[in-house]
């Protein structure tokens, strides 16, 4: 189902530096800290998973990297340039597909090009992206006609037409049924391998993190701080039954205090 984008043989990935980032929300006049001095470096082309308990602030960190909000303290750099706002090279794939219901699949995928006035010159990329996610035949369908997995594929295609150098994945498979989730995990990995972008994956699924990522950064409960930074030095394609993955999973569950019944 996943084939390389024909016209983009090798997009360069971006590097990311998160330097002493803290962040707090204002809740009824009180300050609620969600991130506590988080620092890490991500090489160009890496796929890093941010793993942590629900509500720990990992999605907030992703929003900061996307430039949707500025951090309360600390700084974020992409390719050593400070992040000052959103940029199409750092698109987000959200947990909900958030497709626009009034647009057809094709018009949804065109969104980024249209917003930047590039639809006329680079419209062909839309069809490439639809082919890439295997939904060419659904170009004229409306979102309400799609299944959850198909909608999330459209959302992936909508992100890919922007040629991201750092793809931000905010639990993109979290709401899919388990079979679709397994398929799409494999698809995302081979897409990442072929296209060469960097990817930051927020997830609370330990197995997903160790199966997909080069590195797993484990976050603590809110306010999130880095608990561990684990290399997953296994070649791709990986096999879910690999005993090394099982070891890593146990180690990470231990870090999260969830290994009691393992």
């Amino acid at each position, binding site marked *: 189902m996943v084939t390389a984008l024909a016209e983009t043989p090798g997009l360069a990935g971006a590097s990311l530096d998160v330097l002493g980032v803290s962040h707090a929300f204002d809740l009824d006049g009180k300050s609620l800290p969600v991130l506590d001095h988080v620092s890490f470096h991500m090489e160009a082309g890496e796929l890093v998973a941010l793993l942590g308990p629900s509500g720990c602030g990992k999605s907030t960190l992703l929003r900061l990297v996307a430039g949707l909000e500025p951090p309360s303290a600390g700084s974020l750099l992409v390719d050593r340039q400070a992040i000052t706002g959103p940029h199409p090279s750092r698109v987000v794939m*959200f947990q*909900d597909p958030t497709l*626009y219901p009034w647009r057809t699949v094709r018009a949804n995928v065109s*969104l980024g090009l249209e*917003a930047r006035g590039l639809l006329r010159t680079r419209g062909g990329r839309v069809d490439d992206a639809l082919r890439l996610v295997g939904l060419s035949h659904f170009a004229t369908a409306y979102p309400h006609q*799609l*299944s959850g997995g198909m909608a999330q594929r459209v959302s992936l295609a909508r992100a890919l037409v922007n040629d991201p150098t750092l793809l931000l994945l905010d639990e993109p498979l979290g709401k899919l049924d388990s079979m679709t989730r397994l398929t799409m995990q494999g698809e995302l990995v081979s897409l990442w391998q072929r296209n060469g972008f960097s990817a930051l994956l927020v997830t609370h699924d330990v197995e997903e993190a160790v199966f997909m990522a080069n590195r797993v950064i484990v976050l603590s409960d809110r306010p999130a701080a880095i608990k561990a930074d684990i290399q997953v030095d296994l070649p791709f394609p990986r096999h879910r039954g690999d005993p090394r993955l099982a070891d890593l999973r146990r180690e990470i569950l231990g870090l999260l205090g969830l290994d009691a019944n393992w």
Partner: protein
Amino acid sequence: MSSAKSLRPGEDLALATAAPRSASPGFWYMGAIAAGAWLVFAAVVSFLPDIDDFDRTGLLARIAAVSGVVLALLAVFGPAVPRAIVTRVRHAGPWLVLLAAAFTAWELVTAKFTILPRPFFASPQAMLEVFTDDWPRLGLSVGHSLRLLAGGYVIGASVGFVSGVAIGWSRAVGYWAHPTLRLIGPLPATAWLPLAFFAFPSSYSASTFLIALATGFPVTVLTWSGVASVNKAYYDVARTMGASERFLVLKVAIPAALPSVFVGLFMGLGASFSVLVVAEMMGVKAGLGWYLQWAQGWAAYANMYSALLVMALMCTGLITLLFRARDKLLAWQKGLVQW
């Protein structure tokens, strides 16, 4: 019908509901009953003596008889007629029977036996006479009403839409507009009538203003609420892809708010009708409202009923137009109410 290439999800469903509920091409019994009912009506009109001299009794009888004959032909020779027409006519069958029965009863209690007192209750032929003899004046009234309504409605809807988007989008605009809207909006537009008629140079412009006011309030509030309740994630998606503020308003906020905007346009249209009629009765010397008033002044009750009927047709026609436009623009929505 569906090649593998163009197969779409939900298409099978669409086909299933669109399939005509088999207009069996055989004999149409309900049509025969309807034909009989209309012929009975024709017989009642022509053979029972009128209580007074009505000019159009003959014409009414002929119309009823022709209706009966056409229905009889349709009942027997349905298959020879285009299927789309047959399906529609057959669907109307029970209504055609009821209408004939109602007309007969109405004819009996008015023109034939005067059970209902004249002149307050007009007979069918008296109303028919209004349409055959006074149609120029009625038509002109419809024209005047439509012109006044269209002017006021378009102004009110446009201003309401723009201000609704502005209030929903900008906090600063909302700060100033919200209290004003809360104070002025709920005031019925007709309450401005005395003021408007001396503040404006003509009763026509005063009425345009009132209709615009009545239309503008619901359109503003519902556009505003539509824009304010747009899923915030839609903006995040567009912003991460490099969308400008202009793009966010025109391509995200407004399309997302359109279902709510149409509710406002619908409510505004209803409000504009009532202001239109009041304005035409109170000051404007033309239009259906004026015709009603004029007919009442001359105790021409048949004309009044005819004008009411025309007004009902005009209003329902306009609302149908609005719903058509909505169905076209909001085809992506599921479960739209069919008007």
